Each structure stands twice: as structure tokens, then as C-alpha cells.
């Protein structure tokens, strides 16, 4: 059973729908008792970091999440879920969970494309992710696969060795991290067509070790 953490951050049902399509049993819940009984967790979310942290703290899920990740069980962060596992976010200048060393930064307002035109923010749409090494959750993806992003802030881990996927948008940013039993992506695998579903399916079969 896969637990999808419900912390009132946007529409969490799209992840559940994708898992349902893949035939994977899951439950969207904020009940730590139910979450404890799951064998893996997805931590999704859309919205602002500050509000997300307020909700997590008020539900006691901040401490629960730190303990869960430390327990070694497979964990997948998506979008805002990925951002709030860092130490801080520039969005609302929020102190976050501190599970991943580093911070979340806003795309600078003066990013330009090759023709010198300002890049639009949010970074919204399909972009390539470069995976420099293999990982069980990111295996069997077509080389030219693209993923759906929608965000104005990007993860900046303190240690590049945690980064498993890089994306270019005026600057090179971390689109995916992998460390021990934790993987986290800035893009939306549940909205990225077949390659995105492949990542979710891989995660559902992953034991939590960072090796093939």
C-alpha cells in the first residue's frame, strides 16, 4: 500500500488517479496511523512553501516525515513536496523540513533565452531532464523523454552528489534528487504521460536502495 500524504496542498488526487491507472493500491490520508502501515510514501503538493509548512506542523506531519525518511522506507517527493524537504525556501522565506541540505530559490527575474528575450515565470510546460547516472526509479526512460513542470522556485541542494536529474531553463537546476531511500522530483510524473507513469511504476517496485 502506498500512502499519499494529505496536507491540504492543492489537488492530491491526480497522483492517486495515476497510481490507480497503474493498478497500485494507494490511500490519500493525513492519518499517521495509516501512513505508518504503508510500505512506501508519496509526498506531492502544489502551492506555497510557507502555507505548506504551517499545515504540516499543525497536523504533526513535519516530525512524522523526518522519522519516516530516517526509517529507510521508500519515499517520493513531487513538486512542492520536493521543495519543503529542503532546509529553507525563498518562497515566504520559510523554514522547511531540513531533510535535504540546501535551499529552494526563486528563478531570477532577468533570465533570458538565446534570442535575448526574458524567460517566462513560472517555468511551465515540458522540458528535458538529463540523468547523469542510473537509478532504479529512473530506469527504462526514453532518451528524449520530457517531463511536465510548473514552478517559480527551484531546488538547490548543498551537495551536488544528491542530484540525479538536471534541467536547463536559463540556468541549470536540480530537477530530481536521489539519496538512499529518498527520491524527489520537481516535475509532475503524474502529468508527464508515459515516461512519468514509468517513474511512478518504478517507484512502486523500488526497495529503497540507491543501486541497480
Amino acid at each position: 500500500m502506498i500512502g499519499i500524504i494529505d496536507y491540504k496542498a492543492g489537488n492530491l488526487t491526480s497522483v492517486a488517479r495515476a497510481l490507480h491507472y497503474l493498478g497500485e493500491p494507494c490511500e490519500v490520508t493525513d492519518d499517521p496511523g495509516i501512513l505508518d502501515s504503508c510500505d512506501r510514501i508519496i509526498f506531492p503538493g502544489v502551492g506555497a512553501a510557507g502555507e505548506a509548512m504551517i499545515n504540516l506542523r499543525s497536523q504533526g506531519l513535519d516530525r512524522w516525515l523526518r522519522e519516516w525518511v530516517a526509517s529507510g522506507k521508500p519515499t517520493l517527493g513531487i513538486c512542492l513536496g520536493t521543495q519543503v524537504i529542503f532546509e529553507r525556501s525563498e518562497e515566504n522565506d520559510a523554514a522547511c523540513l531540513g531533510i535535504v541540505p540546501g535551499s529552494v530559490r526563486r528563478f531570477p527575474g532577468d533570465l533570458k533565452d538565446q534570442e535575448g528575450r526574458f524567460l517566462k515565470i513560472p517555468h511551465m510546460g515540458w522540458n528535458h531532464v538529463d540523468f547523469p547516472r542510473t537509478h532504479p526509479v529512473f530506469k527504462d526512460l526514453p532518451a528524449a523523454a520530457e517531463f511536465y513542470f510548473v514552478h517559480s522556485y527551484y531546488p538547490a541542494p548543498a551537495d551536488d552528489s544528491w542530484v540525479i536529474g538536471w534541467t536547463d531553463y536559463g540556468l541549470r537546476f536540480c530537477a530530481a534528487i536521489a539519496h538512499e531511500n529518498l527520491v524527489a522530483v520537481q516535475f509532475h510524473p503524474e502529468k508527464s504521460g508515459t515516461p512519468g507513469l514509468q517513474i511512478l511504476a518504478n517507484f512502486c517496485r523500488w526497495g529503497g536502495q540507491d543501486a541497480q
Partner: protein
Amino acid sequence: MLSKRIIPCLDVRDGKLTKGIKFKGNIDIGDPVEAAREYYEQGADEIVFYDITASSDARNIMLDVVRRVAETIFIPFSVGGGIRSVEDMRAVILAGAEKISVNSEAVKNPALIEEGAKAFGNQCVVLGMDVKKVAIRPEIPSGYEIVIHGGRIYTGRDALQWAKEGESRGAGEICLNSIDADGTQEGYEIELTRLVSSQVRIPVIASGGAGKPEHLLDVLNEGQADAALIASIVHYRTHTIQDLKTYLNGHGVKVRMQW
């Protein structure tokens, strides 16, 4: 770098497509869910549903369509038409849409943009704009005026100013429809698209006029659009989305080629 998006638009009334869509073997598809599946498989980057259901009693039919689409395709899609309140938005988002589009409703009640952005995030709110070219006059300095109700009512609002106002009120994206070009299949309104896209910092989807692959190339390059909305060009099987993307890719436009 980010790919330019190709977005088919489906008009729905009482839960059915308003025009049948011809697919393989000339099968007529009247079911919006099946049409969405076809376009998803052809490589659509996103899908726009426009609900033209007149009666509010039939809104639950559309919500059922949204739910079934969300179980079938795994790319973003938006729903517009008749969304008058945050509660209307919430119902559509909970049914599974990523984005909601407001058009005439936002002209009548601009605070709807802020309320939607505050409740669901800027990325959820698309400002749809129907625009007609008019003589330049003091209140319409760009020469493009916002019209509502399918172009029947002139609002006295300047299109460029309304786009900027929409952005500052929290819209995450603009869907810019030229009423003059709409349905002609003679090409997008390039000048209007470039004007708006170069002066706002949120993505702009160009809409109205696509009849040939060259039209998409022009609006994505010269028009500086971030995405192109298409309808008849794919509904009547003149082209598939894959054809259009292959053409654009061959002409140096970055589009998503693998799905």
C-alpha cells in the same frame, strides 16, 4: 530548454463534443473523453476543454466528463466556460483538471482572478481573452479591444492593458484568442500575439486561425507564443498532432517529440 506546447481545444456541450471529430477510419467521435485519449496518444502537450453548456443544471455533466478525462489521460488539461466563482473552480479542480480558464466572467468580475490564484495558486488560473482589432482610440491604445460573449459585446477594455492587469491580479497564463482569425484557418493574429507575449512575463497561448503547419511555425516564432491552440486543423484530420510536431521540429522549433 522548454518545449513549445501544442494544445488541442475541445468544445463540449451537455457532455458531448459540439462537432464530431474524425479519427482513424473516419470514425466520428462525439465523446470528449475518447477525443482526449486520441489526442493524448498523438502527442498533445495539454488539452483545453471549453464548456459551452448554456444551462447551469448541466454543470454536473461536465464535471463527470472532467473526472473521466482525468482517469484516462496523464497530461495537464484545463476547463473553461461558465466558471463564475471560486466554488465553480474548486469543483472542476477536484474533478481532476489542472487549470481553470476564466474569460467573460473575469471581465465582469476581475477579482475572480485574484480569488482563484489565492485559493489554488497562480498556475491554476488561465485568463482567456477574446480580442478584436479596432481603430486606435484613447481608451484602446493598442488597437485591440476585449470582446465577450463570443465577440458580440465590446467591453471598452484594451487587450494589452487587460493582459497586464490579469497578470498583476495573479493569472498564471494567458490564452489569447483572436476573434478576427478564429475559424478562418488563415493563420493566427501574429501582431497581437507578439504584442501581448512580449509585454507580459507569464506564458501566452495563441488561439484562433490555425489551418496549416506554417501557421503554427509563424506564431511560435514571429508571434513569440509559448504555446499554440489548435482545433479544426486536427479535428477534421487535415493533420495529426504528430505531423504538426514533426514539421515544427524540422523547422527548428523545440517541441516534445517523444511521449
